[in-house]
């Protein structure tokens, strides 16, 4: 395959941020803050450029049927023969899509941060982390095998940990970062076990294939620069391999190996994408700087879970039940988060919950897809694509507001319409986009999702989707009205002023994207199985969706645009229900109880005690017993010469007896 420079050197895309990470982290940061920021940002812009080039070259070279190719890869970790992990770049429409999204949003966020983080101490540190994150996220996106994905998976987790804990002297931030890392870590345990299972059976299947049908392997090796390995997605997703997997029989307790592995892996995905019940870390993650929330906890990292499921979609499809679990968990999270989102007062938390619910959309639409009707697959990635832009925009807008008002509470804001016009407009655009009003981006993707759900006869899920399509505009416009309309509620709001251009520029760009992203003919690029062809809007679903959305907006306007007593009355009437929802159904408390009152109290402390007192105690006891026996024996030594003589005579006889006995 002779193709363009970037395509053959695709490794540049993740490598550039990495290099800049080392440069900035080690050399530039100590030298000059400003330089650090600039270098980091320009590096990401560069790799964004590379990503676009790559996309261009790829679509030139590989139209119309877009094979997945591995233009560059090297062996990284050799476990044993035929079982090694290579580091490489996998290029196919999906990964390109993600690369574009990640680089774009990341570069804009970098740019924005130059303004936002200005004057912070640890400005350089911030950009270092940000670069690290961008690198790991890109590495994850381009991973040609599940191991590399896991590696980068952990790395994005770590960099998100570092960024959430960026204000390390703020206890809330510290605990939030710990929480985020540990919860995702717990999920990754599932991922790891899944990998172990897949790796094991993959290895065996690989052996089988290399004995029986080498043609299959040969076919896989096409378009890839190193020999295929059991960990490669290309290998795992291959129908022949899946067929082998399917008859590997059950593993533990009758569950088929495939389902078990896939569910475990989904656990990992759910952790990253904050699906219920592992969602608890995401709202707290808002303790990090707002651009970070925009980049990591809205646009890119959290969709890694979706991406993972999408990557392994054929395998999931092969084990139907796993996919069903994905669908229902997604649906539930979608609703659950939306409900909570309606009650939160911290602007970033509301956005966080909306992120949760949007991720729920993506998951459920993956869940409803099948190899036969893979519309959901496309829809999910389409939504991922659009969501990245408008959600990043929302966060950056929120950031700009917070920057101005110095508070996260929406009730501290208000009346910012005139104070910060640009922010206001862009925020409004994003809000409409997420609300799913045509012709903004959100509308198209959401419509496709609903269509997919209904198309595969998942009525319940469709119902949920529709309901949430109503809830989303409600809570989004709630914060919109409260923030930008009405009177100034505080000093901060009084003296708020528009942000510097370096922050407004990204807002503008994203706003444009949020408008036009919906018109990308996604279906013709990203698809699994044969191309679907671009099917138009399914008005039968679109119309009700739009109506529901409009009602949501209406309600929000009725409650929040005018005077507040309606709200308070409503809250009165809802009473305990409202409380429970506002306290997020007490999920965090449950976790806290389990960890502290159970694991620490009933496992760790006893073990520590046991070790000190029983294990160590027994060792000390041995020593004590030895000394004791010495003390006792020393009393044979009475000092009486005649006792000695008696012993002497006695033992002579004993020796005689011993001899007599042994020599019989």
């Amino acid at each position, binding site marked *: 395959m002779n193709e363009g420079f970037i395509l053959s050197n695709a490794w540049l895309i993740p490598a550039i941020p990495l290099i800049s990470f080392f440069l900035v982290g080690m050399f530039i940061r100590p030298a000059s803050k400003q330089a650090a920021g600039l270098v980091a940002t320009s590096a990401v812009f560069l790799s964004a450029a590379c990503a676009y080039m790559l996309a261009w070259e790829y679509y030139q070279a590989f139209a119309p049927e877009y094979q997945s190719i591995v233009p560059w890869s090297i062996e990284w970790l050799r476990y044993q023969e035929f079982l090694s992990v290579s580091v490489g770049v996998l290029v196919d429409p999906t990964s390109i899509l993600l690369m574009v999204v990640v680089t774009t949003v990341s570069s804009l966020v970098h740019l924005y941060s130059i303004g936002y983080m200005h004057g912070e101490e640890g400005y350089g540190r911030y950009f270092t982390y940000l670069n690290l994150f961008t690198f790991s996220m890109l590495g994850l996106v381009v991973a040609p095998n599940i191991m590399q994905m896991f590696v980068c998976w952990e790395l994005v987790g770590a960099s998100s940990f570092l960024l959430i804990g960026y204000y390390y002297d703020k206890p809330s931030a510290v605990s939030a970062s710990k929480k985020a890392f540990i919860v995702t870590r717990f999920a990754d345990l599932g991922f790891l076990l899944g990998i172990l299972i897949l790796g094991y059976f993959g290895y065996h299947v690989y052996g089988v294939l290399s004995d029986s049908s080498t043609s299959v392997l040969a076919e896989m090796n096409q378009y890839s620069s190193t020999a295929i390995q059991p960990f490669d997605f290309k290998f795992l997703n291959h129908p022949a391999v899946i067929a082998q997997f399917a008859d590997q029989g059950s593993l533990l307790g009758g569950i088929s190996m495939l389902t078990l592995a896939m569910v475990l892996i989904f656990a990992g995905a759910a952790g990253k994408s904050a699906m219920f019940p592992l969602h608890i870390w995401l709202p707290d993650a808002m303790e990090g700087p707002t651009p970070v929330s925009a980049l990591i906890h809205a646009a890119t990292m959290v969709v890694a879970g979706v991406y993972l499921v999408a990557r392994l979609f054929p395998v999931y499809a092969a084990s139907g039940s796993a996919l069903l679990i994905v669908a229902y968990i997604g649906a539930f999270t979608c609703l659950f988060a939306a409900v909570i989102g309606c009650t939160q007062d911290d602007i970033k938390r509301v956005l966080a919950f909306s992120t949760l619910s949007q991720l729920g959309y993506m998951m459920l639409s993956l869940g409803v897809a099948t190899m036969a009707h893979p519309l959901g697959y496309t829809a999910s990635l389409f939504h991922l694509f659009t969501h990245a832009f408008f959600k990043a925009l929302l966060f950056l807008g929120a950031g700009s507001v917070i920057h101005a008002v110095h508070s996260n509470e929406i009730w501290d804001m208000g009346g910012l319409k005139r104070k910060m016009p640009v922010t206001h407009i862009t925020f409004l655009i994003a809000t409409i986009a997420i609300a799913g009003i045509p012709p903004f981006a959100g509308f198209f993707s959401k419509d496709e999702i609903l269509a997919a759900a209904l198309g595969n006869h998942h009525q319940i899920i469709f119902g949920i989707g529709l309901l949430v399509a109503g809830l989303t505009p409600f809570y989004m416009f709630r914060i919109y009205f409260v923030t930008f309309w009405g009177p100034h509620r505080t000093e901060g709001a009084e003296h708020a002023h528009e942000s510097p251009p370096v922050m407004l520029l990204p807002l503008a760009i994203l706003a444009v994207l949020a408008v036009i992203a919906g018109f990308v003919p996604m279906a013709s690029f990203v698809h699994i199985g044969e191309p679907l062809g671009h099917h138009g809007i399914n008005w039968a679903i679109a119309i009700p969706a739009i109506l529901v959305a409009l009602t949501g907006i209406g309600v929000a306007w009725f409650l929040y645009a005018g005077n507040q007593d309606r709200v308070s009355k409503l809250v009165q009437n809802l009473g305990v229900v409202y409380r429970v929802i506002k306290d997020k159904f007490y999920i965090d408390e449950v976790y806290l109880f389990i960890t502290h009152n159970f694991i620490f109290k009933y496992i760790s402390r006893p073990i520590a005690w046991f070790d000190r007192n029983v294990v160590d105690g027994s060792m000390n006891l041995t020593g004590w017993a030895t000394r004791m026996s*010495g003390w006792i024996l*020393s009393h*044979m030594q009475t000092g009486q010469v005649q006792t000695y003589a008696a*012993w002497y005579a*006695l033992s002579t006889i004993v*020796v005689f007896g011993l*001899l007599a006995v042994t020599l019989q």
Partner: protein
Amino acid sequence: MLMLPELIVIAAGFIILLLDLFLAEEKKNILGTLAFAGLLIALGRTLFSFGQQGELFGGRFVVDSVAIWFKIIFLLAGMTTVALSWDRLTGKTTDIASRMKHRGEFYTILLFSTAGMMYLISSRDLVTLYISLELSTIPLFVLVAWDRDNPLCGEAGLKYVILGALSSAVLLYGLGILYGLSGSTDLATISQKITHSPALWLSVAMITAGIGFKLTLVPFHMWAADVYQGAPTPVTAHLSVASKAAGMAFIFLLFYRVLGGAFQEWNILFAVLATITMTLGNLVAIIQQNIKRFMAFSAISQAGYLIMGFLGPFPEGLPSMLFYLYAYIFTNLVVFAVIIFYANETGRENIDDYRGLSRTNPIIAGAMMLGLFSLAGIPPLSGFVGKFFLFSVASKAGFHWLVGVAAINSTISLYYYLRIVRQMYIEPTMEDATTLQISPMLAGTIAITTLGAVFFGIIPFFYETINQTVAASDWWSVITATAR
């Protein structure tokens, strides 16, 4: 002239005895020199006669390589004892109480005892055997009780002499039975005559008791602790090496030469003796406070390791035992030299009194530590190498459990040896601690013995020489002859 070394020693003894009568007190330093010289010459002669074999008096006195190795040990021990007792006898010690009188007699008696030991290993006849044994033992009674003004000394002497008499009686009774069974006093003849019979077992039991007394095998060891503690420290040192070596020589003669053939299957006896000896020695040593008593128990446990060499196919262990004997003697003398040095200067004999010695006299403390580690069997010191070979002999004989017991025991022993190291290195120094002056004599002794303790194990020459010379001697033929 095969008997020359013995004669030299005895002659030196008599000369000193006579001179002692005429010399004025201040001139008496010459006596020590004489004693040392006598032993040195004898040693030279012995070394010179290496490789010679031969017998006198119709085979009642035989010289072979094993005998020579033993004689070297005895002479070395004697010389060291002279060196160690030098300051005390010449009254150079800071601590008045630890000075000793009557050096003339002291040297004489010491030399006679040494001569007795040298005869012991050369004798091939019950009569000579017994005589030389007593010749080596009775002077020791005197030496132990040397310090008349010190009640402890007297007590030690009393216990030693009474139990000594008892044990020699028992031993004699056993020998008598042996004589009765074989009708001969010649060891070789006896070994061919004897056959298994309860009478033989009884005699063996009694002989074992007699040997156990000299070798401080549990449960015949009881005198050791008290005697070691009570006796003047140089004498204790002498007991702990020379007397033990004599015991070794004795057991060699009786068990290798006499009972060797019949003895093959009696391993279990030694296994049991070794086990209880090392275990009891170690356990009781843990709780000791007085360092001499402590060394007594340590010496007991060492005897336990020593006789592991008797296990297994017979002459196998012989070189290992000889080697370990040497290693043990060097090492033990290092420790005793330091003990004597410290007692001479401060009169202190308790383990806790060694606090902070590493600050005041780092080099001496270092030597002491090396000695203790060698006793504990820490590589690469000679003590370890010796133990390793002995253990290997036992293991080869299939006594893995015994090896286990021994290994665990050396761990225990490490525990109490480390107690002293801890006192010297870790504990804070004593209030009145000052750098102590060491006399050239002791310094030299410590230096030489320490070098011995370190390099005897590292340099293969010594073991290989012992091994070859012993293999060349007639011990193996005797065993194989009697093995029928």
